[in-house]
């Protein structure tokens, strides 16, 4: 059984395809990253999974069953456009949103206190939402998403607007949920987060899927053909070397793509004596590079 099976779904708004012929399978107990530039169709896809938008074509199966209203209680969904009722007290709003998620009444107070404690918000239970800082409100929204102990958790841009401390907090909780056997799908365009926690990824651009699969596998497919360089000096001359395909120069560091079967040792030899080398590492291309390349290619 898969946590999610999407079979050839499409959604059109007028003449504009938001999602076109998308298919994917997400295994249980994994963290799945849905990547893509702004407007690629990530949010529409997630909304279709949640039955908020109905696909024009195709089927969606969640936790082995056809998606329907009754499945909503087994899913936790953090939308991209998210907010809370500003005049409600934190405790009341958690109770209301928990109630419509089907949390039993007697279990509610315990769950609310547990999660508020876990997110260091215990003292805020009787405060109104609009008295909270933006970061606190985002933590409340995250609690809302998981308060009913869902098997599948869908997070649309979960880290948007979070400071590093809260980003780590949320990331750790996501990994903790994975350990409990939960499946997590999240969308983002921040590649470093994906590389840190995702098992599988799917890259969408302009309504279509351009890349899908196991993260490690995808990287391996590109091979160890990239040099990560940290340096002081000028490396402009490298562009003329025969091994070099492309350079992304950031001033003090650079990502150097080599041509097929080219040897990195030649590049290293060329560098020695001309610049100070802080780091020279041969590895797979970063997801960032793959992303830009894939998206750039499909633009043409």
């Amino acid at each position: 059984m898969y946590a999610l099976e999407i079979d050839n779904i499409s959604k059109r708004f007028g003449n504009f395809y938001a999602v076109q012929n998308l298919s994917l399978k997400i295994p249980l107990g994994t963290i799945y990253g849905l990547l893509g530039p702004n407007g690629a169709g990530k949010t529409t896809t997630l909304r279709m999974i949640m039955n908020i938008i109905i696909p024009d074509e195709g089927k969606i199966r969640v936790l082995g069953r056809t998606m329907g209203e009754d499945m909503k209680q087994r899913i936790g969904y953090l939308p991209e456009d998210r907010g809370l009722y500003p005049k409600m007290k934190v405790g009341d709003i958690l109770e209301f949103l928990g109630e419509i998620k089907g949390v039993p009444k007697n279990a509610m107070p315990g769950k609310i206190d547990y999660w508020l404690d876990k997110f260091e918000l215990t003292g805020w239970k009787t405060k109104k939402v609009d008295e909270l800082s933006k970061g606190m409100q985002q933590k409340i929204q995250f609690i809302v998403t998981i308060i009913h102990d869902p098997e599948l958790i869908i997070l649309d841009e979960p880290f948007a607007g979070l400071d590093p401390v809260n980003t780590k907090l949320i990331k750790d909780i996501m990994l903790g949920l994975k350990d409990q056997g939960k499946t997590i799908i999240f969308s983002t365009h921040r590649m470093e987060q994906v590389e840190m926690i995702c098992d599988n990824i799917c890259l969408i651009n302009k309504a279509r899927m351009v890349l899908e699969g196991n993260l490690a596998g995808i990287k391996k497919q590109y091979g160890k053909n990239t040099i990560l360089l940290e340096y002081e000096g000028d490396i402009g001359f490298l562009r003329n070397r025969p091994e070099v395909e492309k350079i992304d120069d950031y001033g003090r560091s650079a990502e150097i793509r080599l041509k097929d079967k080219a040897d990195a040792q030649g590049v290293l030899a060329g560098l020695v004596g001309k610049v100070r080398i802080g780091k020279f590492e041969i590895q797979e291309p970063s997801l960032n590079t793959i992303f830009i390349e894939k998206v750039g290619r499909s633009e043409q």
Partner: protein
Amino acid sequence: MNKIFAVIKREYFQIVKTKGFIISTVLAPVIMIAFIAVPVLLSVKSTGEKKTIAVVDMTGQVFQEFDRTLAEYKMKDESRRYTVQEFRPTAEISGLRSLLSQKVLVNEFSAYIFIPDSILSGGEAEFVSQHVSDFDEIKRLSESLNRVVVGLRLKKEGLDPQRVSDYMKHVGLKTIKVTPQGEKEDVGGTFAMAYVLVLLIYMTLIFYGSIILRGVIEEKSNRVVEIVLSSLKPFELMMGKILGIGAVGLTQYAVWALIGLVMSQYGMSMVTSLVPAASGIKFAIPPYIFFYFVVFFILGYFLYGTLYAAVASTVNNEKEAQQMLMPITMFLVLPILLMTMVIKDPSGSTSVILSLIPFFAPIIMFMRICVLMPPAWQVALSIGLLGLTVVAMVWLAAKIYRIGILMYGKKPSLPEIVKWIKYS
């Protein structure tokens, strides 16, 4: 079903718990009662002052009778309210008058009345006081003096004042309303109450409609709507909101009805004890009018509530909404403008047609029922059409709502909204 109930509960308590609601629910009737009661109480209270008035009677015939007539005005302790003291005319009448003016100025008398010789043949008396603006008092004195002088005039001509007064009695025209149950005197109280109820329907439809509007826009602009929609259907959220706010409306009515009931039990008897004239006014509203009031309020509320919800879902803020609300407001204002016409001719063909149009029915049909019970088939047809329109509107609004609520940015045009209805 539990989910809709949770939404209803949230909407209901969110409003009912606010200070604004408690104040408006309790204060509105209190203010209304104050508007009625304060003038009554004030006019009663201003009678409570004893006065001594000097009288110069040039005829020598008026004073005694005038004194007796004024004795009818009594204080609570049965003592006389107006004490009159006669000053016999002296040879130098202007000297006497300036003396009395002095006495009035030092408050020895509150006023003096000068009755000239000519009074019996059509002349006028004079009332001299420091302040001549207590119209009630001047009217009382004038009436008493009139009765005495006219009586004397009639006697002079050999006529019996009592009989003449009987002949001259004002001819009243009693209004009696005929219903299938028989004839019943109607002093206008029923009609006045019906008028109030019609305006109440109109005002609460607009008032609660805009609460729905604000609620939907708030959910949309706070971006809370998608979080809620991850647990329930857009339809459940929309209906939960409409039902919850409707329950607030019914709560408010119930509180008002209760206050009204208490007031009519105790308040009216208090008012009539103070102002006997008020006892003629009866606020007897037949129970069937209450029944239709509730029916038309509920149907009208759903009709306009869904409209308001649909409009709200398509806009980003209240300013944008105003423009789209224009036609809806027109539907509500038009019947109020046509009210006089419908009341004058409740069974005319224009009134009948208007009362069958669902968007006008909640106000016009209810108005007709208040004025003159229309044939049963017309009432049934009106309610039937209204009911069907409500079902259609709920269906239509749900389609617009489910798309609009997740659309941010540009306000959609009407053709775009039509497209949404087709797509969803």
